[in-house]
């Protein structure tokens, strides 16, 4: 009976179930169902987090079968943090989506089913305990994401979806090849089994596998220079979709890269490889920010901002590799904090962007005049989200930056400090590019309509969460430490 009430399987089953049901029920009732179900998922994730803090990391065998033929689920602090993030982003976005699709109904039929599958895939991915299972969730995630990009139809989104599909398929293909090589070498795909087996002198096949899996993940995470698919896909989709994709989907692959690097392939990692990742991250920060500055479309600007923010995540690799444990811990904490903060903030930003586009009827930064007067809460949310992205206190983004900066200085890698600071300033530049416009009075001939309250408040809730994260980040770090003491 206690087994039945365990949150782990339900976190996967629930979204699958409501996703399928929503297909049958249609967008109206499906949406309501989804909101209720995601709320429940959120409660489950919280419950899980509580359990983990009380009693440490644990494993759940689905259906009681267990590895190798059955499927194991594993939850530690890192997974719980990501689960919490997922539900926390999804709930306001679901509320938002109901309002959004009421105002702009294109693609509403398929939104809920795909979202259900997407969340199921995400939750499953975070909880997976073996490499092949991860492959399946990766594919499900990719397909659901591609589907979401395409739901609104239209030439540009479908093109973007197509491109995204190929990129994600190539990435999963590389992952699967890596899995095959690992299985060929060790005869297992279970993380728990593999982790003690892999050591510094592992065969070339394992190195090859590690490289393939990592490269596949980088492609899917849209790390520079493999970000080419991201801006059109995120910039073209309906706002709730962009928010989900930018906030969560790329975090999933980042999460995997992190796990591989810090756990499974930790003995193989080298400073040089870590520096390479860091350099790509730095390039992403600068490149994404500069391109964001040059955009004239609001959503493209936000999408490029995602490209840049992904770069911060990868700075964690050089900061956590072969450095004293304290420094590595704070780098990890910083990286994860950045993932969470960016998830919340970017979701808020896309949601606010969507509201502005609904209100002005166009996606054009130069026509934002009057938004500040008509949609103050939305603009405020955009600004708060911007604060997090800039890394200004008190926000999750600041806490992340603080931790990363601290470990960079502690480990003597001052060049990342420069990158982070410059990136922060560039972020400010593009955030204020939007804010500045929105503060202006409405231009003659433009219209700024009101938008439903739910759009404004859900975006605000997300933005507020990203700020509060900065003030109350300690519990999150406590949770993150679960299962990592050893």
């Amino acid at each position, binding site marked *: 009976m206690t087994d039945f009430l365990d949150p782990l399987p339900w976190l996967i089953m629930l979204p699958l179930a409501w996703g399928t049901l929503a297909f049958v029920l249609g967008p109206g009732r499906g949406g309501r169902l989804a909101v209720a179900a995601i709320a429940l998922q959120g409660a489950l994730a919280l419950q899980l987090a509580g359990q983990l803090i009380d009693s440490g990391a644990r494993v759940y065998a689905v259906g009681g079968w267990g590895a190798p033929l059955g499927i194991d689920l594993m939850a530690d602090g890192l997974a719980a943090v990501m689960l919490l993030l997922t539900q926390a982003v999804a709930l306001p976005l679901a509320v938002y989506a109901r309002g959004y699709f009421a105002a702009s109904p294109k693609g509403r039929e398929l939104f809920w089913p795909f979202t259900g599958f997407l969340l199921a895939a995400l939750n499953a991915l975070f909880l997976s305990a073996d490499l092949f299972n991860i492959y399946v969730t990766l594919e499900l995630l990719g397909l659901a994401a591609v589907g979401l990009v395409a739901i609104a139809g239209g030439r540009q989104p479908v093109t973007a979806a197509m491109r995204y599909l190929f990129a994600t398929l190539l990435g999963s293909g590389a992952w699967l090849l890596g899995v095959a090589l690992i299985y060929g070498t060790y005869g297992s795909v279970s993380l728990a089994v593999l982790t003690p087996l892999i050591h510094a002198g592992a065969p070339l096949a394992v190195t090859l596998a590690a490289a393939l899996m990592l490269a596949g993940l980088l492609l899917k995470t849209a790390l520079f220079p*493999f970000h080419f698919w991201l801006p059109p896909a995120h910039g073209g989709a309906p706002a709730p979709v962009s928010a989900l994709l930018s906030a969560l989907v790329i975090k999933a692959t980042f999460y995997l890269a992190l796990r591989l690097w810090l756990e499974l392939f930790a003995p193989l990692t080298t400073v040089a490889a870590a520096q390479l990742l860091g350099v790509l991250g730095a390039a992403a920060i600068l490149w994404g920010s*500069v391109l964001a*500055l040059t955009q004239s479309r609001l959503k493209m600007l936000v999408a490029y901002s995602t490209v840049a923010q992904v770069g911060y995540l990868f700075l964690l690799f050089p900061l956590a590799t072969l450095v004293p444990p304290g420094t590595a811990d704070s780098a990890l904490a910083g990286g994860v904090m950045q993932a969470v903060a960016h998830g919340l903030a970017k979701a808020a930003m896309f949601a606010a962007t969507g509201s502005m586009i609904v209100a002005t009827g166009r996606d054009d930064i130069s026509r934002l005049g009057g938004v500040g007067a008509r949609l103050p809460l939305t603009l405020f949310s955009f600004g708060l989200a911007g604060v997090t992205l800039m890394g200004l206190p008190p926000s999750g983004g600041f806490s992340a930056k603080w931790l990363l900066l601290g470990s960079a200085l502690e480990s003597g890698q001052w060049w990342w400090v420069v990158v982070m600071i410059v990136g922060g300033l560039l972020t400010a530049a593009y955030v204020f590019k939007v804010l500045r416009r929105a503060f202006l009075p409405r231009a003659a001939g433009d219209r700024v309509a009101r938008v439903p309250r739910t759009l404004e408040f859900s975006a605000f809730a997300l933005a507020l969460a990203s700020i509060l994260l900065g003030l109350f980040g300690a519990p999150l770090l406590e949770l993150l430490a679960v299962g990592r003491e050893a």
Partner: protein
Amino acid sequence: MDTLTVLCLAAPLLAAALLWLPASRPLGLRLAPWAALPALLLALAAPIPYEVDLPWLLLGTRLGLDETGRVFLLFTALIWLAAGWFARAWLADDARRHIFAGFFLLTQAGNLGVCLVLDAAGFYGFFALMSLAAYGLIVHDRSPPARRAGRVYLVLALAGEMLILSGLLLVADATHMPAAVACLILGFGVKTGLPLLHVSLPLAYAATPIPGAAVLAGAMINAGLLGWLRFLPLGEAALPGAGSALMLAGLLAIFYGVAVGLTQRQPGALLAYSSISQMGYFSVALGAGLLAPELWPLLLPVVVLYALHHALAKGALFLGVGVAERCGASRRVMLGLALPALALAGAPLTSGMLVKGGLKAGLADLPAPWAELLAALLPLAALGTALLMVRLLWLVGRAAPAQRTSASVVGLLAPWLVLLLALAGLAWMMAPQSLITKALSLGAQLDAAWPPLAAAALCAIALRLRWRAPMLPPGDVLVPLLRGLAYLRRRAPALPQWRIALPSGSRAAARPPQLESQLRAWGTAGALWLALLAAVIALLAGTG
């Protein structure tokens, strides 16, 4: 007594405040001439020494009177009172008289405060109030010369203020004593008209309406002297360098003032040069005090008495010039004017003779070159002063009565007479007995008599031979100085702008999108991906 002290300062300020509102303005104007009365009463009635502590005021203010302060307060209050009454009649038809009165009262508060205050910060405060408010008196005419005079006055006054402030701060610390003394001498020297710092005096005295000029010349100039007396380490430390310099400057001022003064055409400017010359005596005396501290106890009472004499004489002269201007240079007026002129020249039985004799005696004990030098020069200086006075009388007498105004003659005459009476009697009343005895001796009388006589004779000759004095503009060295400044200003390069030019975001970043579209091509992306794969493999394999 404390109430009276506070009232001394509060009365002019309150009256000035009343002038601010149109409704209470008539009342303010009526009270204005009386504002110095409490100070006069205090000067007469206060026990010596007398002190009242106001720790909450400014930086902890101490008000009070010592012997020096009492004399200064006495003549200051007297001159302000007389000038106040005089101004009431003088400006009766002036539409802006309330403005004049306002600045007059503020200046007065500052000046009385200077006499009353004992702490450095408070002294500086009242001194600044006096100096700045006097600007309103000088520019009262709004005429170009008045504005010019005001500007020059203000620049010098402010520079002086800064020197004074620095000096007051420095003097507290013995290690900075030379610097402190230099700052103080120069800072107060602006007010007392040390050579080169004197240029604002002739302009200001000539431009200011007569009652204003009377207080400038009679009362305020002595505030600078009081500053020296209060803050220079007189009688405490021997500072031969500073002392000699001050004495030299004083001697220079004595003769320079006379020389340039003789070339002036305006009574006001001439009187200014006379003041410059007279203040030279103080410089000499104080220089002597710095040079030889042991002489100071003897010199101090004489200096104070001299200040009283000079202040009253100058005040009376200015008022007299005013009376002559308004009522015509009648014989009786000229006679009245001759009294302070003679006093300044040190004629027998005048206060001038009394104090000059005292001064000479006090300076006689100076070390080697100075005693002889002074003995030779001081009689010459007396002659110069006498010449200057004769010239003044001639200038005033020659000028036809400009206009007869409706102002009550009594309103002008009465204050003047009060000052004349005070001049005639006060110094004698306050002088120590020894000084009086010495002054009344026959030798002293004869000594004092010859310069005025000689001057009168010289003048008679000059008139007969129709000597024409060359004309120098008031402010003498100022004129070339200002030309030089104007030249520099034309030639000075403009200050550079320090500002960071920000590139405008859109233009600077025109290139990236092209590169971005190249990254999107599958060939490029694939090649990069494979390269990354290869790099990661290579870097990871490095562990083995």
